[in-house]
């Protein structure tokens, strides 16, 4: 195979320049909002996955949200969806990026829960990489200690 140039650092001849290594530290808070908060509370307290429904568009959004992306109406009808669903796509991400919640390789997937119109993006586990397949049935595995985070669903595992 041809040598990858990206694998070497370019040698710049007679280079007389400085490179500064910096880091910006900017703490922030992110508001989950009324609808997002209720969604997270139902998972934390009741292990229930809730969506919001737009009756005009016949769409159930999971995770729940406050505005329909199709008709822009405000959503206030809550529906519980199943903790079981179908895998729409997946990847085995082998690269560490410094911000992953668990060590790679990580299986990421999008799961359409029964009763939901949208997919939920999350991780998968308890499955051999070779057995992963689009269309496979999976269930949510909840974390024992739940704090109000999307990681209160630990991952999805095969049914």
């Amino acid at each position, binding site marked *: 195979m041809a040598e990858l140039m990206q694998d070497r650092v370019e040698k710049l001849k007679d280079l007389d320049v400085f490179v500064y290594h910096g880091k910006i530290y900017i703490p922030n808070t992110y508001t989950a909002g009324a609808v997002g908060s209720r969604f997270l509370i139902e998972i934390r307290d009741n292990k229930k996955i809730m969506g919001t429904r737009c009756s005009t568009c016949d769409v159930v959004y999971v995770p729940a949200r406050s505005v329909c992306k199709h008709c822009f109406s405000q959503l206030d009808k809550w529906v519980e969806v199943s903790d079981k669903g179908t895998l729409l796509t997946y990847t085995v991400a082998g690269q560490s*990026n410094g911000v992953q919640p668990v060590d790679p390789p990580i299986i990421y997937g999008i799961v359409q829960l029964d009763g939901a119109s949208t997919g939920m993006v999350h991780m998968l586990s308890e499955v051999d990489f070779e057995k992963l397949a689009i269309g496979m049935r999976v269930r949510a595995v909840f974390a024992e200690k739940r704090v109000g985070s999307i990681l209160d669903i630990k991952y999805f595992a095969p049914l």
Partner: protein
Amino acid sequence: MAERVGIVAVAQTKYSPNRADANEGELVYEAVKQVLQETGLKFAQDGTGIDATVTCSQDFWDGRTISSCNVMSYVGHHHSDEDKVAEDSLNAVYTAFARILSGHQDVVLVATHCKESQGDKRGIENAAMDPIFLRVLGLDFLSAAALQARRYMYKYGITPYQCARVVVKNRGNAKRNPFAQEPLDLTVEDVLGSQVLASPIRRLDAKPTSDGACAMILATERKAKKLCQKPIWIEGVSNCYETHYLGDRDLAECDALVKAAKKAYKMADITDARKQVNVAEISEEYSYQELLWMEGLGLCGRGEAGKIIDSGMTQLGGQLPVNPSGGMLSGNPTVVAGMTRIAEGVLQLRGEAGERQVTGAKRALAHGFTGVCGQLQGVMILGKA
């Protein structure tokens, strides 16, 4: 539309994995200096020169709040009218185009830069994600793109072999482009044998880290004809956004691109893009994207892009060459890539594309995107008539 808007000069730096010898301003100045020299234009407030500047850069990539602060004095912007666009730079050209159509400005400079070598790509991409439902999962654009690639390949029967052919074509085309960063002689087997980054995406399915800048000058029809012997006209342009949350989208589809393309084609009086476009420059950070975006652009039917790459139709010398420049896969920075596509389209239509020239090209398509799985899609149609 009263007067047309023309592109009168374009310049690119050679794309490089690391330009440690130049800061952002010095890098963008290399391109700006060229378009100033080519047109003889100066910055002026009296209607005799450049009326305004639009820059394009991203704060996270430059590692500072308000990245345009970095480059102002290098783009002749001192005491002048300015705008900064923070997405793909095709949108910066769109903004400059709209400024001219407003009737208030005749000549606008557009300049973009990005030094990927200086930033933490995966961290920056993760920070673009919804903080509560996506970011905590540790997703970045690579793992998200892998979800899209898998879904697209599954739904439309696209094979890893066909994606690899895109890489072989584009890295090979890059050998003819003096601005290209990493031309490579590859085989499909080389690509399929390279390390898996996030399945099904392998190392050679992805673009390398890249530093670079691009600049161009746009002008009203009257001024364009005076400034340049071969102005290239912006015949159509549009953009369209997708939902951010990946679970809301069928990632095998690219509805935003379909809509952006339709609007740009309508503006350019294009009824059948595959017959009326002679060369396409499509931003592909990952190999599957050239195929998926071709379908979204209507250059072939849904699920047909695999057959098209197999047929050789998109090779240089084929019926519709795609990325004769070598594309993003041969090394263009994010942010800059959209303007690279436009600059290459302009060179093609001027007949100045050297060894990568598409014979007799009369109309070019340039495409750019921003964000996770192509969240913002932009399309521009260029013509020489």
